[in-house]
């Protein structure tokens, strides 16, 4: 009797999988407009979200309510830099990619420095760093001239293989690597230890500073890559293009079953969480709900999931 429930609780990603199946079934029954074509659209949008959200997951896993709020700014800046530096050529891309990667890694390192060394709460540190990056994006916007996209990047971001969007394969591979990193390496194990109990992790010999820094650098790097891919997908860069990812990256992490206070993370869940969130938005679009209501529903879903998951946490702390 209790076994299935226990299994569900052990595999929290399954809740978002069930959610996806239910919503998909409902959509297929309710409307003929939901075709395989729109499913491919959902998969593609969800993949872009998943890349950023997996980065967010590493930041969240460090525990203590840490969240990386600089992700949207990194995405926007990276998109601009990719467009400007690559100039739409493959050769330019090989200069642009290392640059945006460096920007992402540096952002993560600065975030970690502010958090660890100056003991600034993660959300303030990342928000403030994001502000500085926003200004860089504003300046980049002034120099923005071309809408040409490098062919390689376009292939990665927008083509399909046997009907499956290339970006979905990339996001799937990323999720698989992240899952292995979390569950099968020393780094993942100590990261989860740190998220559960920082003092105990440090006393058990974990290098808390190094682990946290790597987590935030991963978050920054993935956001930067995501920005580059997004610029190819949308065929340009614009101010505020990363903004939806502020709530959605946190949302996908939480909905996917990663504990918001850290210590337990699931990359597969984050990927599924991203799909579920995008599916919810798509459903609302199909239902013809105005944009404001869509935002509202997303906000409510995330608060509701948090409130429901909170019970497990308070039980844990007793």
């Amino acid at each position, binding site marked *: 009797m209790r076994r299935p429930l226990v299994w569900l609780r052990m595999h929290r990603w399954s809740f978002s999988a069930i959610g996806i199946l239910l919503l998909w079934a409902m959509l297929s029954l309710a409307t003929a407009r939901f075709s395989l074509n729109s499913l491919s659209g959902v998969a593609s949008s969800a993949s872009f979200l998943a890349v950023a959200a997996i980065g967010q997951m590493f930041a969240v896993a460090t525990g203590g309510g840490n*969240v990386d709020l600089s992700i949207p700014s990194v995405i926007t800046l990276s998109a601009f830099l990719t467009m400007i530096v690559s100039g739409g050529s493959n050769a330019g891309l090989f200069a642009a990619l290392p640059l945006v990667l460096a920007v992402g890694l540096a952002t993560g390192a600065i975030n970690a420095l502010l958090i660890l*060394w*100056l*003991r*600034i*709460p993660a*959300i*303030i540190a990342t*928000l*403030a*760093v*994001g502000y*500085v990056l*926003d*200004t*860089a994006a504003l300046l980049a916007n002034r120099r923005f001239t071309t809408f040409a996209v490098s062919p390689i990047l376009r292939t990665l971001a927008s083509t399909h293989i046997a009907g499956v969007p290339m970006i979905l394969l990339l996001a799937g591979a990323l999720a698989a690597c992240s899952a292995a990193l979390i*569950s*099968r*390496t*020393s*780094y993942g*194990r100590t990261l989860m*230890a740190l998220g*559960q*109990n920082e003092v*105990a992790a*440090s*006393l*058990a*010999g*974990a*290098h808390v500073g190094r*682990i946290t820094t790597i987590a935030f650098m991963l978050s920054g790097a993935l956001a930067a890559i995501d920005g580059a891919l997004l610029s190819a997908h949308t065929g340009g860069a614009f101010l505020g293009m990363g903004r939806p990812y*502020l*709530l959605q990256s*946190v*949302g996908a992490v939480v909905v996917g079953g990663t504990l*918001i*206070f850290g*210590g337990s993370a699931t990359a597969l869940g984050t990927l599924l969480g991203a799909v579920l969130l995008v599916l919810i938005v798509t459903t609302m679009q199909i239902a013809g709900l*105005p*944009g*404001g*209501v*869509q*935002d*509202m*529903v*997303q*906000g*409510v879903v*995330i*608060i509701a999931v*948090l*409130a429901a998951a*909170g019970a497990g*946490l*308070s039980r*844990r*702390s007793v």
Partner: protein
Amino acid sequence: MTHPAPGLAHPVLRLDGISKAYGRTRANQDLSFSVAAGEIVGLIGANGAGKSTLMRILSGITLPDAGWLEISGTAIDPRRFSPERARQIGIRIVHQELSLCASLTVAENFYVEQPGQGGLGPTWRRHYERLAEASLAAIFPENGIHVRRPVATLSLPQRQMVEVARAGVDPKLRLLILDEPSSSLDMRRSRELQNFIAARAAAGVAVIFISHKLQEVAAVAKRVLVMRNGRLALDGETAAIAVPQMIAAMAGEAVQDLEQTQRKSGASVGRVLVETEGPWARSPLALHAGEIIGLAGLEGSGQREFLRALQRAGAGSHSSAGIICRGSVSFVAGDRATEGVFPLWDVIANATVGRIAAGPLLAWLRPMAEQSAATPFLDAVRLPPERRASPILELSGGNQQKVLMARALIAAADILLLDDPTRGVDVAVKRDFYALIRQAAEAGKLVIWYSSETIEFLECHRVVLFHEGVARRVLNASTLSEDAIISASFAEQDAGAPGRAAAKARTSPPGSGPLSRDALFALVPFLTTALIFVVIAALNHNAATMFGIDLLLSAAVPLVLVSLGQMFVVGGSEIDLGVGAFAGLANVLSATFLVSEPLLGVVTLLLAVGAYAALGPLIQARGIPAIVVTLGASFVWAGVGYALQPTPGGSAPGWLSAASGVHLAAIPASVLAVALAAILAASLNASRMGVVLRGFGANPRAVAQCGWSPLAASLLRYAIAGSFALLAGLTMTAINTASDINAGSSYTLLSVAAVVIGGSALIGGRIAPVGVVCGALSLSLIGSLLGFLGVSTDYDAAVQGGLLIAILVLRAMEARRA
């Protein structure tokens, strides 16, 4: 006053069969005793013996599983007991972990614990100041405590005095429980405390006195209760029980074994693994492989700090002054819940994490190999095989402790650091541990062992005696006996040589010197605002006219209001990422409904504030992070606003735009609005309600134990924040005579920045309304300043973000220096 009529006939307190279990751990088992009026009872027991649980039951914080209580002959259903009820009856407790709110003043701390005095008017503050002053002076004359100063500025002994005075002054007092009240008091203050206890007892108050200082217990109390493993082990007159007998009763059979074990003939000493000197030891100390070293001394004399420093030195992550560590270390925490176990994991993962952490970060883990590697060590610590697949939290305390021991052994380090590992575990586990420790030393490890049970040091080859943070003496195996260690500990105590702890106590309260620097820091927001304004005025002389000021301030008013709302949330150690969006929503509602249908407008605005306030209890009750909830909520607010009004538009209600043009004696509305907002926030903050809110921000558990509701407090906190954001939305409507749902969003980060710049602490409990107003003005004026300087508005965000980081860096450096 006490009630002599029923009180004399019945004991003040009678317990019958009180039991409490946490999982498999029986913290209290079938406790029955009584305390008469005027009686002083000493309560002693090792850590984990169940004293704290008993005290929590008596003060209504913890409900027992079985048994009942009787106070002055009236039976009390323990399942309906609560801190408020305990307080009404007259049970007061001085907690061991100080329960004062450091950011509140001494007088405010008196208020939080004893509300309801001082009348309705604003004279309440004066009342509590007089109360605090009088009760402190009555117990501890010439204490030098200023009741209007925050508790944070007091030294540790002064805080302990406040704590005692606060509980002791209660006129309804019937049962006074003192949990380690004298741990940081010097001889004179301890004597004053003893006199006070005797005086209260003479007046008919029953007193329970808990202390690790057995001599003091013998001096203060007529009767002593000894607890062991949750049970009452001994109950008798102090005159008839010698200190060694008390110790024997506290320790029980496990350590009685120790006295019978063969005395070791000294260790087979290997190479030097740890050398220490300087701040940690009076004379250089070398510790060798194969030795068991005990860290003794009175509790809190620096033994655990030394152990931590060793751990850091061994892990190589931090330099530790005065310690050279020539081997790898592993650590066994005795405080399992907070420093030991990883609650989400099973036994195997908990046991192997130490070895994994010692390896390279990208080492590949194989679960089967991990499990087989762990098995011999779990065998060695005698963890029952059927428990090895269980989640760690399903194990008893003793078994959890075995897993932690296995974790340290698996790591195969040269040095084993034990932080009181037998605390609260049963006899059988203790015996196993002693054997394991012996084996580890025989295998050539250096074992460094801190214990709160003195008799365990008989297992050691050498014992290092700590006093006030410094290793003062070393006792060798030949001279080791329990009496020798205890008398040496007390000898050090009585010698009272000033050491690290005393020095710390002296430097920790920011006295006159640091206080002036604090005051200087508090001035920074004002000076920044003034400076920016002067520069603007110098660049553009029109800015210095009334019209110019009005123009500059009008733009700043919404940010000032949003920041004040944010300030109250930050005061509760939370950050609100939805406050700007909510101001935007209020802007939309007031420019649409409030114009077309005023009644509906008012109702929707009130509903919105209600929904906003409801976030507080949601966050509190579910224990979820405020930032993510408020971030989610920000999308709700923006979404609602956007759905109502997709494009900017609307108009301001007539009365609102009229209000924005009001002048009072040539002072424009914007200046009035800023001043009013500051006054409103400051008076809210200084009110009784504000005191409680700040108390929750600083020390939520202590305030809740005083009977205040955390849910109500967070509801109130978010209601206040929402109301300020509502006012911000209204001013936005008045100024712009239109609404735009996105107009508020930029205020969110700026409000956090304003709160930080204004001098509020992000960890909560300390907020500075006027400083926050200045912070908001500075941030708003910077935009205008950059404009006058010809800098593109592109840089606004970077300058504001940079300013926020710069201020936080300065703060962190200041905190590090202090």
